[in-house]
């Protein structure tokens, strides 16, 4: 349906759903009990939610952009990603072990958790809904090239596709390839090209905007 063929009421009141799901009821009941028994405080819960919500793919992008411009940092990132993230002030201590997977001309890595939704949250924030969907989780292991094609990524047969199924204590972060034509860009500009999806491995890093031609070079 076209989204403009019906009238909008921009000021429709925001309504709470009146029915909680079973899991919401369970969560609230457990939280209320833990607070009542003095095991945690409501403020601690609030701070934890605030921390989770503050994590975004910008953190991962900062790490990847630094690895693109600084080969020594990339070596440290591949050897010990948590320590390398900490160098940039990113706390990944909640992850048991973080693993960085480098995409190259011959290898393309893509990450899934077929059992649930394991995800490198300190670096990427909360996973997108599709990452948690049964569709992605079940199909990317069986037909990775077909699923990547649906994301708009067509890979040559000569490239080895590696699907990482994070079933246990490891959390995987993909280091996408640095796009061509970015030699002139600063680390901050490069970080803008590192998208969430490229760090899951369902896309490449964004291509840079074409550089504006100098006025003198434009023929009249």
């Amino acid at each position, binding site marked *: 349906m076209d989204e403009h063929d019906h009238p909008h009421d921009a000021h429709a009141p925001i309504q709470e759903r009146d029915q909680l799901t079973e899991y919401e009821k369970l969560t609230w009941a457990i939280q209320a009990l833990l607070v009542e028994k003095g095991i945690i405080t409501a403020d601690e819960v609030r701070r934890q939610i605030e921390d989770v919500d503050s994590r975004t793919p910008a953190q991962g992008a900062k790490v990847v952009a630094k690895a693109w411009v600084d080969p020594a940092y990339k070596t440290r990132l591949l050897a010990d990603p948590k320590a390398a993230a900490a160098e940039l002030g990113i706390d990944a201590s909640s992850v048991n072990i973080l693993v960085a997977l480098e995409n190259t001309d011959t290898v393309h890595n893509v990450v899934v958790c077929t059992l649930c939704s394991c995800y490198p949250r300190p670096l990427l924030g909360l996973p997108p809904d599709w990452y948690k969907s049964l569709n992605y989780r079940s199909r990317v292991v069986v037909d*990775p090239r077909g699923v990547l094609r649906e994301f708009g990524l067509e890979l040559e*047969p000569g490239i080895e596709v590696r699907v990482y199924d994070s079933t246990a204590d490891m959390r995987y972060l993909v280091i996408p390839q640095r796009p061509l034509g970015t030699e002139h860009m600063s680390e901050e500009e490069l970080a803008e090209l590192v998208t969430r999806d490229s760090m899951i491995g369902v896309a490449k890093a964004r291509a840079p905007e074409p550089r504006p031609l100098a006025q003198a070079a434009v023929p009249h």
Partner: protein
Amino acid sequence: MAAKFKPGDRVRIRVGSPPGHFRTPAYVQGKVGSVERIQGEFLNPESLAHGGDGLPRRFLYLVSLGQADLWAKYPASLQDKLFIDIYEHWLEPA
């Protein structure tokens, strides 16, 4: 305790569905792959999920499997692989 397997070893992933929680997906059970890396020793999630202490710790291995070995219809001409973390008690020599 020492790890039972080392990188390069061929291993078969056991078939099983023990009661309760386990983290070895059905689609790799019974399949043969290679140990890529020893990830370390970790508390056993099968115990942790049910309020246990997770002990003894289990070695965890990164195992690679050829996609063409995993799926009958996968084009054998491709070098594509699946990498998956499997606890030691789910592995046997192949």
